[in-house]
């Protein structure tokens, strides 16, 4: 945990310094949107380890809900999408350091993140849920107090677990946390309800969801601060995709239901 805080601290430190330099550059050479249009390419970061939202398939290609949304957005902007797989713990730092233009990776819009980056309107709605073994004594999220609860580093799950006063066990990815729960080393896992359901179904883990959704989440597309033109452009296309049913169609393809409306 300490080590993670260190890394995060350093990334944040650079992110803060970088944001200063970044904005200087953009004021000199037009907005990010102009640059994207000029290059004919939008660089989009996607984690690639969060099925079914985004992951690598057997052809070593990125696919999933986020990938379809990202490609559709690029198409509507009239530019080529360049997808860049980036580890979750360095994804915001890399955006701020201008390693890519936007992040389309199921990122929840939070006040903490808004300090460093900007978001579009939400493109889907989800929530964090507590998964426990079927025979667990935990009957209610409040029972998680003092229990060992796993979650992904840098994700909302850690905050939620902390609020429940659980003993937080951070993992690199969710499915490792689920494996540890199956081995009996931790008492529960907090993650996105869709992701958790997908993992337990795929691996036949005897787990259940306790209680309601712990935290409502609105996932947005992440971009650097001060890029209002780019944000408006993305919001316009998102609204269009919502209106003409494209967004709902993509959701139905991956989840069999529409997660893009509340």
């Amino acid at each position, binding site marked *: 945990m300490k080590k993670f805080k*260190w*890394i995060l601290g*350093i*990334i944040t430190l*650079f*992110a803060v*310094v*970088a944001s200063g*330099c970044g904005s200087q550059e953009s004021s000199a050479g037009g907005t990010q949107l102009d640059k994207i249009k000029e290059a004919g390419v939008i660089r989009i970061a996607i984690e*690639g*380890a*969060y*099925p079914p939202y985004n*992951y*690598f*398939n*057997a052809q*070593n290609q990125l696919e999933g809900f986020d990938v379809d949304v990202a490609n559709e957005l690029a198409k509507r902007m009239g530019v080529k999408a360049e997808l*860049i*797989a*980036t*580890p979750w*713990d*360095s994804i915001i*730092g*890399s955006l701020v*350091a*201008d*390693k890519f233009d936007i992040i389309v990776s199921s990122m929840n819009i939070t006040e903490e993140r808004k300090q460093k980056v900007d978001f579009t309107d939400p493109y889907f709605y989800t929530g964090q849920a507590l998964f426990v073994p079927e025979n667990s004594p935990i009957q209610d999220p409040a029972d998680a107090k003092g229990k060992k609860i796993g979650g992904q580093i840098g994700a909302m799950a850690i905050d939620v677990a902390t609020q429940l006063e659980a003993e937080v066990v951070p993992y*690199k*990815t969710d*499915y*490792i946390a*689920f*494996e540890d729960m199956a081995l009996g080393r931790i008492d529960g896992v907090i993650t996105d309800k869709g992701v958790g359901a997908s*993992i337990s179904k*795929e*691996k036949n883990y005897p787990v259940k969801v306790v209680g309601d959704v712990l935290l409502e989440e609105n996932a947005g597309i992440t971009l650097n601060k001060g890029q209002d033109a780019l944000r408006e452009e993305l919001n316009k296309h998102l609204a269009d995709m919502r209106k003409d049913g494209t967004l709902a169609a993509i959701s139905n393809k991956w989840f069999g239901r529409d997660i893009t409306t509340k």
Partner: protein
Amino acid sequence: MLDFSLVAKYIPYLLEASLVTLEIAVLSIAIGLILGLFTALLRISGIRPLEAIARFYIWVTRGTPLLVQILLVYFGLPQLGIDIAPFPAAVLALGFNAGAYFAEIYRAGIQSIPKGQIEAAQSLGMGYPLIMRRIVLPQALRVSLPAMGNESITLLKDSSLASLVTVTELMMASQRFAASNYAFIEFYITAAVLYLVMTTFFSFILNRAEKRLSISDR
């Protein structure tokens, strides 16, 4: 319970990623060897300011985590207007790190050469560069080789840290496919085997080099 048939169709991508791992390792070892030699020569130069520079470099580099150094190169240098792509950033950071370790390995080798040899060479009228090149370094290299082998193998495995700056090397590729199949033990065992193959290859080359350089001992 373990299902390795899953891994089969990903083998080509894992091999491709192994090649990236090898590239990172070989390039950063090359940088480390050159940087290390110069640092070692500064370190034993007897000229105070130059020695101090070498000492400082070794102190900082060995004393801080490699992970932080890689992040500094990738995220830090852009602040100074130097924007480096992920692959060169990883190679640079690893090479810079290896240089400090190699410097100390060279130094140990150089200092293991008896003073008498140097005095003998001086009495023959040889200058410092010539003594280094013809007498000291060839012997020092032989003494240093096992330790260099160790460091090289460590470096090959440390190249997995490049995944943090989006370089798709073996560990990154394994993590991806482990995630999309929820099968991490299978993919990580496969990665371990591939690392073992690469380190075995390194050991083999080093053994050959050691044999060649020790001809004079026979």
